[in-house]
């Protein structure tokens, strides 16, 4: 079964009535139902503390790392209809299919080469030729190849902030994920690096589906196909980006977008 929407776009993953509780009992998500379309960019916007990052981190079970957190509801990954929040599903399997880029560039204190190779290594890839090829491919995909091809053995910390973030994208890309999650990927970067990353993301959507959290509405308007507005753990509105930014159906969304609130 292939789920499609009215625009004939394919649903890659969707959350259904997703609730999330942190270990201290606070409910961070309330009945969030949201589709992520294949080869599209879906942006999550909303004031800080609205649960958009929490929602994003459900998609690769990052919350499993900290004891006491609890999911309630489903996130179905198509085409195999796996509920990735199911306790029987190994979070590691989920993370191998859905990769993530974080707010602050977080390369490992290893060489550029080893950073990108790491995802392949944990998948048991040992063939050096295969790894070399995939690293080149991933670095090209992250438009970093030209800058680093002569110094792959350099420590990743020696790169600039924007380069480090592109390295993290390459690292996430090397394992050919189905979905990539971006958690405010440009918030720690300067404007020029931000433009680079934005262009990069727009190019990436041919290969995979993207879910991005951003604190920056212009960014959402520039790069995304769909935008979801969240407030206090609830999904207020979700639609085509153009629609959200030009004629939102809800008053709260309009207030947030026009800057009256948030």
């Amino acid at each position, binding site marked *: 079964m292939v789920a499609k929407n009215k625009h004939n776009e394919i649903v890659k993953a969707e959350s259904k009535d997703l609730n999330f509780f942190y270990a201290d009992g606070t409910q961070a998500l309330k009945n969030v139902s949201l589709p992520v379309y294949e080869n599209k960019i879906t942006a999550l916007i909303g004031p800080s503390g609205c649960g958009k990052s929490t929602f994003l981190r459900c998609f690769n079970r990052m919350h499993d790392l900290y004891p006491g957190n609890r999911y309630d509801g489903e996130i179905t*990954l198509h085409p195999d209809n*796996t509920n990735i929040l199911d306790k029987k599903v190994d979070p590691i*399997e989920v993370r191998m299919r859905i990769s993530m880029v974080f707010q602050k560039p977080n390369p490992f204190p290893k060489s550029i080469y080893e950073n990108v190779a790491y995802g392949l290594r944990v998948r048991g890839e040992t063939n050096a030729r295969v790894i070399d090829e995939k690293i080149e491919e991933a670095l090209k995909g992250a438009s970093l190849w030209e800058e680093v091809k002569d110094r792959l053995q350099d420590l990743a910390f020696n790169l600039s902030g924007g380069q480090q973030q592109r390295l993290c994208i390459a690292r996430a890309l090397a394992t050919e994920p189905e979905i990539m999650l971006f958690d405010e990927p440009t918030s720690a970067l300067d404007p020029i690096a931000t433009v680079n990353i934005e262009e990069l993301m727009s190019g990436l959507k041919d290969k995979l589906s993207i879910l991005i959290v951003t604190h920056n509405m212009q960014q959402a308007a520039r790069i995304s196909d769909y935008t979801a507005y969240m407030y206090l753990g609830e999904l207020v509105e979700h639609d085509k980006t153009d629609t959200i930014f030009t004629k939102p159906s809800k008053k709260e969304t309009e207030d947030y977008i026009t800057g009256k609130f948030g």
Partner: protein
Amino acid sequence: MSETTISPQLAKKFSRNLIERLIEFGLLCSAAFAVLITAAIVFVLVSEAIPFFQHVSLYDFFTDTVWTPNYSIKHYGILALVSGTLTTTFIALFVAIPLGTITAIYLSEFASHKVRETIKPILELLVGVPTVVFGYFALMMVTPLLQKIYPDLTTFNMLGPGIVMGIMIVPYIASVAEDSMRAVPMAMREGAYAMGATRFQTAVRVITPAAISGIVAAYILAISRAVGETMIVAIAAGQQPNFTFNPVESAATITSYIVSVALGDLEHGGIGYQSIFAAGLTLLLMTLSFNIVGHMARKKFAERY
């Protein structure tokens, strides 16, 4: 495309989880080893001390002031050893607490960054000096020096080793107390300076009270170290049990008694052998009670600030 990549992953999942569990269990066992050591300490001391206390009444143990388990006329008054332990500890603290506190305040509030970065490694190096060497200092250098001031001082006395022990402990107090003073938020200092306080006023009236729990912890650590210190007193205080609090006399401490027995021919299972475990148990209880008092004091202060 995804289905072909999942199935081998799923096959791997079971063995991977098993290995992960085994590793976690192995690590847990290593960590639990610490509990095992504590249990073993208590078990060994208690099980060897029980036969001792079947032979010696607790009343005698705590009231008799003569300790001669290895003589023909046997007495088992632990006070003769406790007095030596307390006297040397007191002398050491008398030296170490003022010097250590002044050093800590100076390093934390007065010294420039460069001075601090120079002095702290030196203090750390001093912490690493083995106690047997400090024992040599006490016997061969400090006591002869003291004898020049006070000619009646015997070769073995509690004053020399007590002072040396104090010097040895200064870096411990300084480093723990300094850490807790540095941990006081800068905002507190700024608050004091903004009121027109000088460095000294800030250090004494604001920083010291705020860091008091760490400073108390440093003192407690110092007491524990002094009570448990062995080689300095074994070398320089003499090893004859002597119920006295007079620093110029020679005396044995609990620890130096254990050393002196261990150095001789000790008959496994004899009363002499058991006596060192009874002494060890007393020592452990003393350090434990200091630690508990320290813990309570820290909690009390922590509540107030």
